[in-house]
């Protein structure tokens, strides 16, 4: 028999994700639940994609377009975060289930600091985007705005993370955003000369699609 070093048996999408600290991972595994709910389907992503494509996406105007829509995204994410966070069910040690509450009055500092954290995350995401092949001598602003969009797509997750503590389920959401962005690259080499192929639109749009699917169906997985 061949001697093989056995790989870890846990196989899930959360493997794609940033740090998982072993101990917490095991201890807190099952004490929250994010049920599927029509309320938490992020229809506003579809709206923003529509709005991006409806506005001027010709070369040179993409940047302004994405900046405008970024503000729309941030605003709508704030509202959506309430829907998302209040849908999470915490399971206490005695197996009681209770919904997480989020109120503007109590949690304003969390909401605001999460925005700041999202902004801080723009830098590592930018580096990752460049590492994956985005141009780094040109298109600096475009890459930055792309990273900001990606960062704010995960905003509800950041808020939930600080609200309930680290949970492995959150990494599934991030994985969907990342997979969406990854597949966006498929559209780049095609020689169709469409306006929506302007950098970085394919990545932005497909990461919206990826995170739409993620926020919708992770509850079902």
């Amino acid at each position, binding site marked *: 028999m061949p001697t093989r070093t056995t*790989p*870890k048996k846990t196989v899930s999408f959360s493997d794609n994700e940033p740090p998982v600290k072993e101990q917490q991972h095991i201890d807190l595994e099952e004490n929250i639940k994010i049920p599927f709910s029509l309320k938490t389907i992020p229809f506003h992503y579809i709206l923003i994609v529509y709005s991006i494509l409806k506005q001027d996406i010709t070369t040179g105007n993409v940047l302004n377009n994405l900046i405008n829509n970024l503000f729309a995204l941030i605003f709508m994410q704030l509202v959506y975060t309430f829907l998302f966070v209040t849908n999470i069910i915490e399971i206490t040690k005695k197996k009681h289930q209770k919904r997480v509450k989020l109120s503007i009055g109590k949690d304003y500092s969390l909401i605001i600091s999460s925005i700041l954290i999202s902004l801080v995350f723009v830098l590592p995401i930018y580096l990752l985007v460049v590492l994956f*092949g985005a141009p780094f001598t040109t298109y600096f602003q475009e890459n930055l705005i792309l990273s900001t969009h990606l960062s704010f797509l995960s905003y509800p997750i950041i808020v939930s993370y600080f609200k309930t503590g680290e949970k492995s389920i959150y990494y599934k959401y991030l994985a969907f955003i990342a997979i969406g962005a990854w597949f966006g690259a498929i559209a780049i080499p095609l020689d169709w000369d469409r306006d929506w192929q302007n950098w970085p639109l394919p990545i932005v749009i497909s990461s919206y699609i990826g995170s739409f699917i993620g926020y919708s169906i992770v509850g079902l997985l």
Partner: protein
Amino acid sequence: MQRPQDPESGEEVRKRLVQQSDAKFHIRNNRLRFMAILYVLIFFSFAALQTIAIAFFTRGFLLSRQVLDNHSTLTDPIFLDQSDKLQNFDKAVVVIIDALRFDFTVPDSENEFYYRNNFLTPYNLNQKYPQNSVLLKFIADPPTTTLQRLKGLTTGSLPTFVDAGSNFDGDVIHEDNFIKQLYSNNRSIAFVGDDTWEAVFSPFLNTSYPYDSLNVWDLHTVDNGVIEHMIPMLDDQKSNKWDVLIGHTLGVDHCGHRYGPSHFSMRDKQKQMDTFINDIIDRIDDKTLLVVMGDHGMDRTGNHGGDSLDELEAALWLYSKKNSFHQLNDKSVYDISNGGKNYRSVNQIDLVPTFSLLMGLPIPFNNLGKPIEEAFDSKDTFKLASYLTMEQIQRYRYHSTSLKDDELINNKYKELKNIWNQGDPKGIFAEKVLEYEYESLERCKDLWARFDLLSISIGIILLAFSLVLLVIYSKLIPSVVITQLTEEIVPATIAMVCIFTVIFIAISVILKPSFLSLLWFSLLGAAIGIIFGFLIPILDRYSIKWLFTSLLDKFSGLWSLIAISFMVLHAAIFGSNSFTIWEDKITSYFLITFGFLSAVKSLDAQKKVDRVMGVYHSVLFMITTRLVSLSTICREEQGSQCTPTFKLSWWMILALFVNAFFMPSYIRAFYNITSSYHSAAPLWINMFKVVLVMITVYWSFEYLEFNQADSSFEFIRNLDLESLHFVKYTLARIIAGIALIAANVGWSRGPLCVKLEIKNTETSSREACILGYQNVYGSQYFLLVMNFTAAILLFTKPLGQLSISILIYQILSLFELVDILGVRANLISPVVLGLLGYLHFFSTGHQATIPSIHWEVGFTLTEKITFPFTHLAIVLNTFGPFIIVALSVSLITLWKIPPSQKPISLYSRIIENCGTLLIYETLVALSALIFATVFRRHLMVWKIFAPRFMFAGLVQIVINIVLVTTTIGFSCGRLILQINRIFGK
């Protein structure tokens, strides 16, 4: 073991045990040796099957055209009494300036390039004396290699792609051509220049001074020779009797290959040619026609062979001292703006009827070209020329079995014949005949691009079978069974190959099928024999259903899924030309994705040190991949989206010197991880450093030579090139000798990288500790990889060498990751290794196109083309990264493991990984073949899909050869045997 109360029997028992273990050891060793031979045979069968498959496909895809052996004569009814009316010249001087692109000949007001405004005699004379001169753009048919162009230029027919391969050893043209016509009409021909002419036309040349054509480093010998011989022959036309004097200069072409068009040498070269043309003009008389032309152009890197506009657009200039020509009424067709982008163009084959008729010769039988209007003195003579050409084309069509039933063209011909016989009352003949000639040419092009679908399908099916066999053999069968099964497969395969070859030869001999010759039939038999030889023992043991469930079982799990997605996506990119041309970026995208995932996955590792090292190696893997992907030569289709960075500049030479010290030191660092830097390792790595310094010195000389005239240092400009050459060649030969021969002979003696450290400790007085035990296989095997790397580096251009250096780093770093992630037996490891091969193929300045081959590297060891050195150099340069990868694949299993007590199962795991690498390459090749077939009518087939399939086929063959001869054949068996001998008892 020892029993004190009974010493004698104890001694006996011990003896018996020692004897037993000795016997076991010998059995195991012999069995190991036996398995090594079996595995070589197994992989040899795979290699044979795949090579036969690729050969079949190539045979069907690269078809050749039907050549008619008929010849035209002046007594043919078509030409009888007609040719005198058109003959305008008694003598001709033909100067072919190789790679004379059209824009070299027209003025440019901005004067921003070295290659413009130097060769303007034709243009100036054309402006001054429009009736004495014709300057036209001259469109070559692809492929734009000199031999094909010479065939096209003299026979007037279209060469096929296959001929391109035979550029290195041209054949005599048997087809009717105007050189042969000159000869049979008793004109004497004198020739000077490119020796391709000698190979192709030697029976017809009365006087000939051939010069070696393929030494692209030499810009002057051929040109000086042409000038030296031609000028005296022109001066003294009485004693040197010639009717047609042909000169073929190569300086401009070689200058393009060597330096690219934008180099000051190009300016000097063109000025020299300009003076030469002026000298000729001074010496010719009224009855002499002067033809100056390029046989093809060059792309922006100075190479040619493909079919981009820059490569196709050459220049044609006709000149005579009496008024023999006329210009078209519409002067706007001679538009020289933008380098003559919209200038009037004619096909290269159009020269054939034009030249033949002007010289009073019959038009060659197979000609498809049409006469050039400007070359005749009036509209009426042009009309007669067109009529004669039409008659000749139609005669050719009636003689050709595949063309004679084309009623569309035949009807056009009959209509034209009618108009001609009625004396052309409406004056529409000239216009209509052009249409006819154009249509006729297009139909021929269509027809000759027809493929042999039977051979193509056989090729694809055989390759698909080889893929299935590989998957079953190396992945589905449990490793415990594989050794037994191998022992059954080998005899079965040998028997089946014999049986099927005999059966197929018999079928071929008895039935005499028309579609395949005996040789191809026996090859097909052998291939089918191999397939059956594998399938019979396998299916005897397992059902298809079991294999299928095993497939699903084997290919699950995150890493396997990712590996499969990489493979499938890589194979799928050939479904679109856009993806195929961006293959370089796509492979680096996959590798960076792997780096990212492995960083994330490393965080799951149990030990902290593994987590840290895993993330460290992954991040560096991503960064190095990204850096390497910046180096590219850009294929033409990538256009403005890509800036070529693969050039030679001074900082690269500096970087090479730094690398010569950096590369050995990081290899040492990797050895130190397992304390393997002992005994053989320091010797090897220090020697490697010396060789690297020597390679760097070699390329510094190369750089000096390249930039000598540009240098700001006096002493460099005054260097003696001859002695530099001598030093350079000697150095290159020494390096090649060390890396390819001496080092490998040394390796075959079995250099161990372990050290026995004996120290005194508290518990026992002397304790032995074997340093390097943890990586005993890997440390030794990697020395072999270093040997080949040194050889490949010698033949790689400086930026490419930096890329290869990073490749070695990435491979070592990948092995660390494989160890941390525990994916030694997983699909992902060989797949990532395979991807690294592709990444570095592109970053060493290659693309899957013919013009991007670095032909000039062929002259590293010898000044002239010498088998096998030139060929070896080009193969190592082009496929270097793949060779390194195919060698390193066994290290996935061997790196960082202690001596195994089960050497046979260790061997079978190496075989599994070799098989996986082959699965990946086969899938990619299969996809390239299938899509080349699917897109065989695609506009881009000869530009994108056909070169990609040729590249895939060659990679497949190279990897097979390296695996069979070196990885499995030479090194792995020897290494495992040796380690087993030392540590196995």
